[in-house]
Structure formats: C-alpha cells, structure tokens
C-alpha cells in the first residue's frame, strides 16, 4: 500500500515540478503484464495522454508477472492472455474482462512455398508438435496438400521457450483438436514440449523459423506479416480451410458468447463458423474488486472506457479485433457491480 501511495506521490510530484503533461489533474495509471497486449495498450495510452493528460505506465513483463503484481496491488491493473478461472478470481478478490482479441498463426520455412500455399488441419498440426510426423513428405501432410511439392526434409518444430499467452492459445487449440495432445501435453502458458527448438519471444520463434530449413513455428499474426514468414491455411472447426487475417479473426470472435461466460472466462480457439480462424483468443485485464483509492480506480476504468469507445480503429490497424459494443456494455455493467470503494460505493458511475 505504501508503495502504491508513494508511486502516486511521485507522479504528483512530477506533475508539480512540471515534468508531467502540465495539464491540470494530470495523473498516471500503472499496469503490468501481457506482452501480447502491449502494442495496443501503448498505442491507446499515447493518444489518451494527448487527449486527457492522464498517462499510462505499462510494464510488459508477461502475463504471469502481471497476475502477481495485481495480486500484490503494486499496479492499478494487470493484463493476462490466459483468463483466470472464477474460483481463482474469487480467491484473489479480482475482477477480469477482455480488452482485445487476436490470432495466432502457424508459419513454416519451406523453400518454394508461398504464404497460404500449405494447408494443415488441427490433428496434423498436433501430430507434428507431438513428433509423430517428422518429415514434410509424410502421407498425412501430402493428402491435405494435393499438388504441392513437399520436400523429404525433417520438420524442425519451433516453440516458445518462455511462458507466453501465445503458447497458451496454441496449446489450448491443440488440446481441443487432439485427444493425444490433451492427454500427453495439455495447455498452459508453458508446457513440456515433446519435440522441438525453443525460441524466446515471438521474435525468437520468428528467427528460428526463418533461419531453419523445414521449420514450423507459431507467432502472433503481426509478427508473421512483419517478418514476411510463410503462414499457412488451417482447417477450422467446420472443416473449411481459412487464411489468417482480420476477417477470419473477427469471424471467430463473433462467436464468442461473453454473456454466458462466467467472469468472461472464455477462450476463442476452435470456434464454429465457416470463416472462423481456429486459433483466436482474447487478452484480459485484471483489477482489484476493492479499490482502496477509488479516484485512481476510476481513472483506470476511464482509460479502458475511452479505449473501447475510441480505440477500435487503432486496434484494427495493429491487426487486433476490438471487443464488440454489446460486450463493452456488459463489461461496464461488471465494473459497476464488482468494483467498489472501501465504503461499498461503485467506483464506476459514468453511464456512457
């Protein structure tokens, strides 16, 4: 608590001494966690600061770190790519809601293949990551790719070596489409990989995949396009091959039944719909239900309310899928219901 206050004191001091924005009432809100959410949070925060003078200090230390920090109340909010289960939220006195959605894309390094040329389905992808398929010209892969010339090289499986929300979405998807994967490996931000090379961060996976002949890896969509990696088509829940792009992410996101997901505990992998990209997911924000400092809590909620109302276009520019408006209304209702100051009054009062 004293740290909390001293941070605020420091922020106030900076403003007083003219190091802040110089605008009246300028404040700073602090957050920590997900690296997945960092690009869009940074973008929103940048614009938000010029509009309101309130700055966001966000440390992208990873979802695990974000959860730890919000539990110990050293930040105003935490961000995690893996939703916490209702019982964990209850135990820690936290409330969570989704901020943004995005897609994870398998990428390959096979000479002569164009992006989108190779097609895989979930069980095949799982078999590759289980080490059961180890050559590119395996009959199972060949059957999915009639007419594509596949080399007889070894498949170099590349995965994340650090704990990651991207890994959570990827392994969660594999668990849904492959009983073997579910039984032997499971889904988490870090798992015991049966085969493969581990690269640190999306960059690490992108590098290993780009450098190693015959490699297959998985990255957030933006990294695939930025690094000009050869992305592949995936068969979705309906058995239709789809390309990864904003449209197919949105199709998957449209299925999300947030209204019936307790505490928004919802993962969007393997969604039905013929256009749905199968490895889609949301990233979440966590806050303390009991706000010892309601004004600070309100500032934080204002930032997210503003982001939902004004940040959709920025999100799409960065290849994220914004949260639909009806869900935003639900989220604001959740704020009103769950986030209270110490005297029991709801912190969020504004009706948009």
């Amino acid at each position, binding site marked *: 608590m004293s740290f909390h206050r001293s941070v605020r004191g420091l922020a106030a001091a900076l403003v007083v001494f003219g190091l802040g924005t110089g605008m009246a009432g300028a404040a700073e809100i602090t957050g920590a966690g997900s690296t997945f959410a960092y690009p869009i949070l940074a973008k929103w925060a940048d614009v938000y600061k010029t509009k309101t003078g309130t700055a966001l200090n966000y440390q992208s230390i990873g*979802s695990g770190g974000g959860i730890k920090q919000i539990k110990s109340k050293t930040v105003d909010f935490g961000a995690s790519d893996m939703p916490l289960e209702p019982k964990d939220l209850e135990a820690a006195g936290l409330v969570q809601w989704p901020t943004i959605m995005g897609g994870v894309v398998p990428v390959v390094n096979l000479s002569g293949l164009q992006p989108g040329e190779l097609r895989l389905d979930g069980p095949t992808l799982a078999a590759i990551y289980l080490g059961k398929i180890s050559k590119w010209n395996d009959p199972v892969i060949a059957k999915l790719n009639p007419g594509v010339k596949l080399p007889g090289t070894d498949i170099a499986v590349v995965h994340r*070596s*650090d*704990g990651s929300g991207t890994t959570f979405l990827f392994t969660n998807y594999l668990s849904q489409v492959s009983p073997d994967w579910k039984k032997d490996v*499971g889904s988490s931000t*870090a798992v015991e990989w049966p085969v493969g090379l*581990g690269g640190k961060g999306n960059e690490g996976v992108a*590098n290993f995949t780009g450098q190693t002949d015959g490699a297959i890896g998985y990255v957030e969509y933006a990294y695939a396009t930025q690094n000009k990696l050869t992305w592949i088509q995936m068969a979705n829940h309906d058995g239709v091959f789809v390309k990864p792009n904003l449209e197919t992410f949105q199709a998957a996101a449209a299925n999300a039944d947030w209204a019936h997901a307790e505490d928004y505990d919802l993962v969007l992998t393997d969604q039905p719909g013929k256009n749905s990209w199968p490895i889609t997911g949301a990233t979440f924000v966590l806050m303390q239900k009991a706000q010892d400092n309601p004004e600070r809590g309100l500032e934080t909620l204002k930032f997210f309310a503003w982001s939902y109302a004004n940040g959709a276009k920025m999100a799409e520019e960065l290849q994220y899928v914004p949260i639909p408006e009806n869900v935003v209304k639900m989220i604001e209702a959740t704020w009103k219901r769950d986030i209270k100051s110490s005297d029991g009054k709801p912190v969020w009062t504004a009706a948009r």
Partner: protein
Amino acid sequence: MFSEDSATMDRPEEVATRIPSGLKLNLPFRWLTAAAAMLVVAALLAMLAILAVDSAPAFRRFGFAFLVTSAWNPVTDTYGALAPVTGTLVTSVIAMLVGTPVAVGVAIFLNEICPHRLRDPLAIAIELLAAVPSIIYGMWGLFVLAPLLGRHVYPALIHWIGPVPVVGALFQGPPFGIGTLTAGLILAIMVIPFIASVARQVLGSVPPMLREAAYGVGATTWEVARHVLIPHARRGLIGGVMLGLGRALGETMAVTFVIGNAHRLSASLLHPGTTISAVLANEFTEASGDLYLSSLVALGLILFAVTFAVLLGARALLARADRRSV
C-alpha cells in the same frame, strides 16, 4: 625542573592538537572499509539465504528426485533439474575442450614466438574478445554461426561420424544448427580471452633460467613448451581453465540464443538442450505458480553451488601455483 617539566608536558599536547585530524578520520575510515567488505559478504549471504528459503518448497516436494529427473512440466507442476544441469555441464565441458588448447596456444605464441612489435596489439585484440557483450555473441551465434554449422558442418559430422558406434551417438539427428554443440562452441570463443590471459601470466612466471637453459641445450620451441613451460605452469593453467569454466557455467544470453531451449535429455550434441541460466532467463518472468517459481530458484541455487565450487577450486590451484613460482 618545573619549567622543563612543563615544557615536556606541553609538547605532547601540541603534537596532540596537530595529529587529531588524522586520528579523527582514521577510525571511521577503518570502519568504513570494514563496512564495505562486510557489505559484500552480507550481500552474498543474503543471496544464499533467499535462494535457500525460496527453493525450499521445491526440494521439500521433490526431494532428491529434483536432481535426477528431467521432467519439466508446468501443466502438471512436476519439475526436475537433470536436463538443465546436464546441459550446463556438457556445454561447459565442450567449451573447455575446444577453448583451452586454443587459449594455451595463443599464450605460448604471444610469449615465445610472436615478434615483439605484434605482441601488444595481438594481446589487446584477444582481450577485447572478453569485452564483447554476451548478447552480441548470442546474436552472432544465431545469425551467423548456427546457419553455417547447420548447413555445412553438421551434415558432414552426421554423415561421417554418425554411423560410428558409441561416438556416433553424439552426432545424430537433423542438422538444425541450433543445439548443445553450437552453444558449447560459442562458449569456447567466449572463454578463450580469460584462459589466455591467465596462461600468459603463469607461462611468463616460469623462471627465465629454466627456459634459457632448455633453449641452451638445443631444445626447439615445441620441446620447451611441451617439456618445460607447460609442466612448470601446469597448476596455474588449470586454475585459468577453472576461471574460464566459471564463466562458461553461468553464461546466459549467448547460450539462450543458440541452444534451442528444450528440456530434454538426448545423447546427441546436435539436439537442442538447455542450461540452468537459459531456463532462468526464459521462464522466470512468466512463471505463475509457486512451485514453478520455487523450482526455478532451486535451479539458481544449484548453479550457485557449482560455480562457487569451481571458483574455489580455481583459487586454490592458482594460489599454490603462485607460491611455487615465487
């Protein structure tokens, strides 16, 4: 008498009034230096204590099995240190096997053979290797060395040595270029300046009389190096190797880039593996779960113990070498 007495009594007082500034500062100064030394020792002990306390849950849960199993599964919360510990030792041994001969060769060349004019520039160039940040080694390893080895060297190793019984098991699998051997080779380059610098010192401390006498009876440079210099400086050389080993054991970034970060034990050096410090660098930030975190701290404690033992050994050997050369 009186006047004399008073005079003799006056003088010490005078002296006393002149000295105090030094006396006054002397005691605090002594305390200050003692405090500085104590601070370092206290920090060391504090680190050890924290490591011991935080790793206790992992050791309590897994016991001795933590050291001898290689499961590393955050999903089921089962952890074992065998894979990273083995990886740490194997990469360091490769680094020593490759780095030591090169470093001793460098030292002998600089001390015995190199023209005087070239000696200093060369020595500085080699010491500059030690100043290259390890992340640069890592990036160079990932972008240059790994693809080079993967495309041109490892396929040949797999083809020629792979089928040989016993030794062949070390060189099997697909040639990705990323793996334990690549990490060991990067480490070898990184430890060369350390070993070479110690080797130059201990070889230089061989009494000139011995060296001159050997040359005098017609020994060649090879014979002098082989039968006089190296045997005489043997202990110091081992100490230098141990210093290099200490560095190799703890190296993090360069290894993380090229080792492949896989928690698996495999006989082949071409397969991806991991080391203790690489695991820590990779997994600490997102380790969610207390047992997970505790297991990581336990790995840190093991690394601490290994490195500490190696450095103690190095110091002991170097100290004895010093005594002998005096």
